[in-house]
């Protein structure tokens, strides 16, 4: 077939689950931190939680912010796992829950378990957490939720003070404290993307914007796209897997429309298609040694021989039995002349016959059976059975007795069916001969005038294809009530159903109903019938035959030219879903290919939502338009300062190409400047950890902490939602 071996396809293996990496236990609390009052810094994100001492340059703990609490009924144990420990256990994985609803902590019970875990892992064994806490919170978090957190921290752990800040602002601070007075920070986070302008050291949260797209919606979108693309995929894809796909394969196109168009070109497609292979187990085909195969063959042969022997033996026994029977019957028959009539009849009855005719019949059938069996034994083909005779049919009824008349009736029926059978047989033979002759003719013509033959075949095929297509179209039109075809049909039905005779067609003196005299009349029922598929199969067979012939004799007619072809060569949809790898149009996909995902257009489609939220039907401005909106709120001087420092941070900021695209797009919304680049878009040094780092930097500044942290006393006085504004956090409102 047209199998083609391309260059080796790179397969990206699909992990089934997130790998478990153990979290270390720290034991240095007593000697290094117990009485120092070193601040603890927790970046409490809805995806990952990062926690550590402010004096260190990295968080000690980084784990997925989740908890699994369940009872193991088999072992009768209660279990509670936090963070990455959840991935170590199947049962835990299925019980994982997050304290977050969107980006906001809503479940204090789970949060408490996570905090317990942090403090245990840090090795804190004092009777309280005697360390100031610096913690991140979402942009514009509702008071209710901040109150939940403060209550937890002050009441359960009795912390001395808490400072809340926004992770993206901390990240801005970490990427140059002196620069952080002016700028726009764009945080492409787990649930949402936030854009916050900072002007002259003041955070303008009233101009901040949130776009409802981030890593988590992106993974979800990826999952949905894959489910739609592979509705019959043999495995179930998990959200973890779609997250991995989204993180490992997506990129932002510099020119989205251009990039999309490039995917249509198979050559470009080949370089961009990513093949993700799911694990699968091929059915085990046992390889047998030659010796064993020979042994098995011999065994089979032996078995066959034994069976044949048995059958022959049985046949022989039967034959002998029949011969004995025949001898008996013949003996009886012959003894008719020697015995008295009553005695003979007595014997006849004892052998199970009613009258002499029965005996004759039995002799005849037994004789025939014996002859057949003998012939079979000797391998002689049965000669043509002589045609049955119907002697009574032609004799007039008057000459027959009552009994014979009955017999004649039976014979007449038998004769009729026999004649019909013979006629059908003859017709069939004639038909096959005719077909053979036609094929012969066809072959001769093909050899004589190959080109003409091909042209004719193509013409015939085309005619048939057109016919099938026209039919299909008509059917489609009929499914729409308002189409022309449907209305014509309704008209026909109305005309048929109306009692009033159609006036034009009948002239005077001709008011007799002649419907049906002409065969064409019946076609009106064809016209109004909606589901006329009587000929469909026939046509499909005919088309298949033509195409098989063409495939055989026309070297230019390939599989992809057949009417229902679906191969990488003629179908974009085919290589969009199955890639450009080897494909056998007859057999279909190979087993390993059925376990493959092809990521191509999705690679740019998923992150593009950041720029065009309309793709997922999200009625919000994209990154660039949002920035334009924000910039409009500032005067020219402030604008010029802001665009000097556009910082992109957050997990999804790591998507390749994002910064380039932003850089290019921001240019398009700024006034033209011919000489120098009057703006700067940059990525955070560490998109994931900079939030924690910035918070640690603030925490190390003792003087500043004294001014901005909320003490226990203030908590008791003003309540859990109280904060002090400090330029890196939410507004006090």
């Amino acid at each position, binding site marked *: 077939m047209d199998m083609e071996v391309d260059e080796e396809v790179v397969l990206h293996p699909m992990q089934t689950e997130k790998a478990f990496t153990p979290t270390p236990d720290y034991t240095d609390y007593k000697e290094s931190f117990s009485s120092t009052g070193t601040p603890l810094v927790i970046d409490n994100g809805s995806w990952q939680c990062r926690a550590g001492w402010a004096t260190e340059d990295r968080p000690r703990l980084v784990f997925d912010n989740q908890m699994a609490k369940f009872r193991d009924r088999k072992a*009768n144990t209660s279990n509670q796992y936090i963070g990455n420990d959840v991935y170590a256990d199947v049962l835990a994985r299925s019980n994982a829950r997050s304290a977050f609803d969107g980006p906001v902590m809503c479940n204090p019970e789970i949060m408490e378990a996570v905090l317990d875990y942090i403090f245990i892992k840090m090795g804190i064994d004092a009777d309280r957490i005697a360390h100031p806490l610096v913690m991140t919170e979402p942009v514009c978090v509702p008071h209710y939720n901040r109150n939940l957190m403060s209550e937890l921290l002050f009441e359960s*752990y009795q912390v001395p003070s808490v400072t809340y800040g926004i992770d993206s602002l901390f990240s801005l601070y970490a990427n140059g404290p002196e620069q952080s007075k002016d700028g726009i920070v764009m945080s492409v986070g787990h649930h949402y993307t936030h854009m916050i302008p900072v002007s002259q050291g003041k955070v303008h949260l*009233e101009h901040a914007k949130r776009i409802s797209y981030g890593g988590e919606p992106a993974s979800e979108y990826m999952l949905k796209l894959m489910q739609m693309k592979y509705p019959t995929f043999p495995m179930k894809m998990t959200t973890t897997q779609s997250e991995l796909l989204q993180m490992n394969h997506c990129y932002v196109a510099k020119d989205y429309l251009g990039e*999309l168009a490039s995917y249509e070109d198979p050559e470009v497609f080949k370089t961009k298609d990513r093949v993700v292979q799911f694990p699968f187990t091929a059915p085990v085909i046992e390889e047998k040694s030659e010796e064993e195969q020979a042994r098995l063959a011999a065994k089979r042969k032996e078995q066959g021989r034994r069976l044949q022997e048995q059958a022959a033996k049985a046949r022989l026994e039967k034959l002998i039995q029949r011969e004995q029977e025949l001898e008996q019957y013949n003996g009886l028959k012959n003894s008719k002349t020697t015995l008295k009539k009553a005695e003979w009849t007595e014997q006849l009855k004892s052998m199970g016959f009613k009258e002499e005719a029965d005996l004759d019949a039995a002799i005849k059938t037994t004789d025939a059976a014996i002859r057949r069996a003998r012939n079979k034994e000797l391998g002689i083909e049965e000669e043509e059975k002589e045609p049955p005779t119907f002697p009574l049919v032609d004799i007039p009824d008057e000459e027959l007795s009552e009994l014979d008349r009955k017999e004649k009736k039976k014979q007449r029926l038998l004769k009729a069916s026999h004649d019909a059978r013979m006629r059908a047989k003859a017709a069939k033979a004639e038909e096959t001969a005719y077909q053979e002759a036609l094929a012969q003719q066809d072959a001769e013509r093909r050899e004589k005038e190959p080109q003409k033959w091909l042209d004719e075949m193509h013409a015939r095929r085309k005619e048939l294809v057109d016919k099938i297509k026209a039919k299909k179209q008509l059917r489609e039109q009929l499914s729409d009530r308002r189409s022309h075809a449907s209305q014509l049909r309704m008209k026909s039905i109305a005309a048929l159903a109306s009692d009033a005779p159609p006036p034009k067609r009948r002239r005077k003196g001709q008011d007799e109903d002649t419907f049906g005299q002409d065969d064409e009349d019946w076609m009106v029922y064809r016209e109004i019938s909606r589901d006329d598929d009587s000929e469909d199969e026939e046509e499909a067979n005919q088309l298949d035959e033509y195409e098989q012939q063409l495939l055989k004799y026309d070297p230019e007619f390939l599989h992809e030219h057949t009417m229902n072809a679906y191969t990488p060569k003629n179908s974009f949809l085919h290589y969009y879903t199955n890639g450009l790898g080897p494909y056998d149009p007859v057999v279909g996909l190979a087993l390993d290919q059925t376990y493959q995902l092809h990521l191509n257009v999705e690679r740019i489609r998923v992150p593009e939502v950041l720029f065009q939220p*309309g793709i997922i039907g999200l009625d919000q401005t994209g990154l660039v338009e949002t920035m334009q909106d924000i910039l409009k709120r500032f005067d020219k001087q402030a604008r010029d300062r802001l665009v000097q420092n556009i910082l992109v941070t957050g997990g999804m900021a790591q998507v390749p190409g994002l910064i380039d695209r932003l850089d290019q797009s921001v240019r398009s919304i700024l006034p033209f400047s011919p000489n120098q680049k009057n703006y700067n878009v940059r990525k955070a040094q560490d998109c994931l950890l900079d939030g924690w780092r910035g918070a640690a930097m603030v925490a190390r500044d003792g003087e500043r902490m004294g001014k901005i942290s909320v003490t226990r006393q203030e908590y008791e006085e003003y309540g859990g939602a109280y904060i002090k504004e400090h330029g890196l956090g939410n507004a006090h409102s």
Partner: protein
Amino acid sequence: MASSITGSPTNSTSGAALAEQTPPALPVTNMAHIHKPFKKPGWHASKKTKNLKQIITADKAKEWKANTPTYWNIEALPSMTPQKKYCDITGLEARYTDPKTRLRYHSTEVYQLIKSQPIGVVQQYLGLRNAAVVLK
């Protein structure tokens, strides 16, 4: 300290059967059986939770000064620029819309596919861009 808190979930109770399932070498921490000295005894976080939507609804009902940034009013506004249309099946640029299903499509080949799809699949495709008909 470390030895008291690390260990497989199995060593807390006798669970020989479980020990076979989870290799004891994995240093996971089962928080259910760990003493937490730093906590105030007797205090527990409330088990009653409200989801974000409830909280926001309650918050919206309060009185707010003008220009106060809140969780719900910092949401990005609807876009004012014309939206590009993309093929619902392939993601390529969509030149056409099927009047019957309202699906956008890129080429005749995709159109053939659309025509053969059952209504449920069509709605799922529409759902990808939040345009499915939801009957209530």
